[in-house]
């Protein structure tokens, strides 16, 4: 292949994203070393959680802190159904996801009328409410949690056996396949009328309403879809660790989820993947800064917010190279940086 055509292939950022996901999946799933299986699982799970938040914030403009709570509802549902009530894993998963979606509708009903700070705190209150309910429930194992040795088993694909058991390469592959499916799904939303409507609502709610775009309807849909994504992440997390406890779903998890989306680039489909790689890379893998890993990550977050608020994918290399020239026209696939948490809209329309 000529280098020119390679270059052309990679001109499209989406393709780079897909190649990166495939490379990560193959790398982590085949290397066989427990450390890398651990890292790979975490990257995929955090990328999923990040994608959930990215969809609701980066695309729909709603700074929802409830995503971790959705993950908790799903993870605990599966754990309780299998470990306590003897359900099979595959029967428990659909019910868990359905319950999570139901919960997201409740949260949405209460919160979607609010905006800005109020929306953020309302959703945070729900997330923390879930954690507190869990830690006071005997069924959910209170603060100790539930041992959940899920038996996912193996899938036979013709002559191939795909072992999905946690802490194997097969599990890592499963996590990445689910991540890829979610990313493809988000891509579909991006190109659809629903995606345009969410875009419009994020940019200017009043203008959108004047064009017939119903805020509640589309935001609720965004909320439900993001809850499904968070649910997949939560279930995978519980499956991977073979254990679930309220400690996973507290404020620190909320913060990490936000931080990795900002780091990768809010509103970029593959932003959370990059964010998760950097997050896990710094704090767990390369151990950059030794015991100061989290601090280095925090400092990196601050630096990006100050100097490149669109995140790593939002850094325009061409512009950096050619400072003097006027800004180049933007790529088709370049999304819009999420607007700040809007302040409360006053009633009616200012003339």
């Amino acid at each position, binding site marked *: 292949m000529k280098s020119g055509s390679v270059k052309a292939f990679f001109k499209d950022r989406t393709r780079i994203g897909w190649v990166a996901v495939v490379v990560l999946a193959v790398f982590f799933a085949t290397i066989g070393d427990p450390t890398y299986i651990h890292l790979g699982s975490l990257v995929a799970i955090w990328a999923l959680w990040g994608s959930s938040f990215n969809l609701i914030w980066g695309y729909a403009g709603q700074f929802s802190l409830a995503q971790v709570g959705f993950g908790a509802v799903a993870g605990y549902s599966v754990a309780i159904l299998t470990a306590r009530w003897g359900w099979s894993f595959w029967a428990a998963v659909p019910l868990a996801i359905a319950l999570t979606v139901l919960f997201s509708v409740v949260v949405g009903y209460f919160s979607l009328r609010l905006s800005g700070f109020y929306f953020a705190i309302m959703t945070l209150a729900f997330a923390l409410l879930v954690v507190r309910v869990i830690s006071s429930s005997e069924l959910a194992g209170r603060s100790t949690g539930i041992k959940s040795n899920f038996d996912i088993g193996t899938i036979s694909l013709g002559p191939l056996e795909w072992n999905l058991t946690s802490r194997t390469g097969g599990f890592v592959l499963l996590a990445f396949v689910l991540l890829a499916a979610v990313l493809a*799904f988000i891509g*579909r*939303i991006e*190109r*659809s*009328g*629903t*995606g*345009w*409507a969410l*875009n*419009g609502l994020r*940019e*200017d709610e*009043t*203008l*959108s*309403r*004047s*064009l*017939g*775009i*119903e*805020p509640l*309807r*589309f935001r609720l*849909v965004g909320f439900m*879809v993001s809850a499904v994504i968070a649910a997949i992440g939560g279930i995978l997390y519980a499956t991977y660790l073979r254990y679930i406890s309220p400690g996973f779903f507290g404020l620190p998890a909320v913060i990490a989820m936000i931080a990795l989306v900002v780091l990768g680039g809010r509103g970029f489909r593959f932003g959370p993947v990059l964010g998760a790689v950097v997050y896990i890379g710094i704090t767990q893998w390369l151990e950059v800064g030794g015991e100061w890993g989290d601090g280095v990550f925090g400092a990196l977050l601050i630096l990006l917010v100050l100097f490149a608020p669109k995140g790593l994918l939002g850094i325009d290399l061409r512009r950096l190279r050619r400072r003097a020239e006027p800004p180049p*026209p*933007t790529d088709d696939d370049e999304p*819009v*940086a999420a*607007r700040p948490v809007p302040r409360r809209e006053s*009633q*009616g*329309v*200012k*003339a």
Partner: protein
Amino acid sequence: MTAEVAPGEVLLECTDLVRRFGGVAAVDGVGFGLRAGEVSALIGPNGAGKTTVFNLLSGFLAVTSGSITWRGRDITSAKATARAGSGLVRTFQQPRVFAALTVHQNLVTATHAVVPSRVSADLLGLPGARRRARQRQGFADELLDRFDLAVHAEVKAGDLPYGLRKRLGLVLGVAASPRVLLMDEPAAGLNDAEVELLKQDLATIRGSGVTICIVEHHMGLIMSVSDRVMVMESGRMIADGTPAEIANDERVVAAYLGQGATA
């Protein structure tokens, strides 16, 4: 653009509209009808209540009392989005565009009313979703051509100069496929060349069968494009007639002189 409308049929009608803010009645007993095919103007001094009337008609503000009918149906308490979806569309006095999206993306977003999203089809990726996505693109391209915006297609709307932003705001309203288009001061802040362009746009829009109601301070524009002029002062309608009648109406002249008229 679906159903045929008999010329002269009253599309939008309001009666005894009242809207109070605190104790002040910004709109105080206004009533009129808009006939299909007509270009009407709503004028009046600053603070007369024109924008408030538009906010009431388009559903962005609730009426204190009075009623609004749209093609014979009572829509007094219908949602703004439902009104826009059924063809009653408004634009804004301050140019409103999706600042961070390109002009083309702005138009695609605005085609929502023409090509409504079926959420389930979008999420499931049914063939209809793809077809509608193509329809949207096609419709947006057509508008780019029709309003000479193609050269700016890939520019971020927020980076456009004021005049173009104002124009894009108007075209967004057109993209929503209105039967009646309420325009709030489309000429405000435009230079003479841009006003000329606006006149052409108005002709184009009218030519496509859209009924127009304009709030404006630009008298030259009003007198040359409208069939009918309504005048408001302090929340009340003080005159309603042809441009020629209005130009000679004493109360209108008094209202404007009292305010220091903008011609």
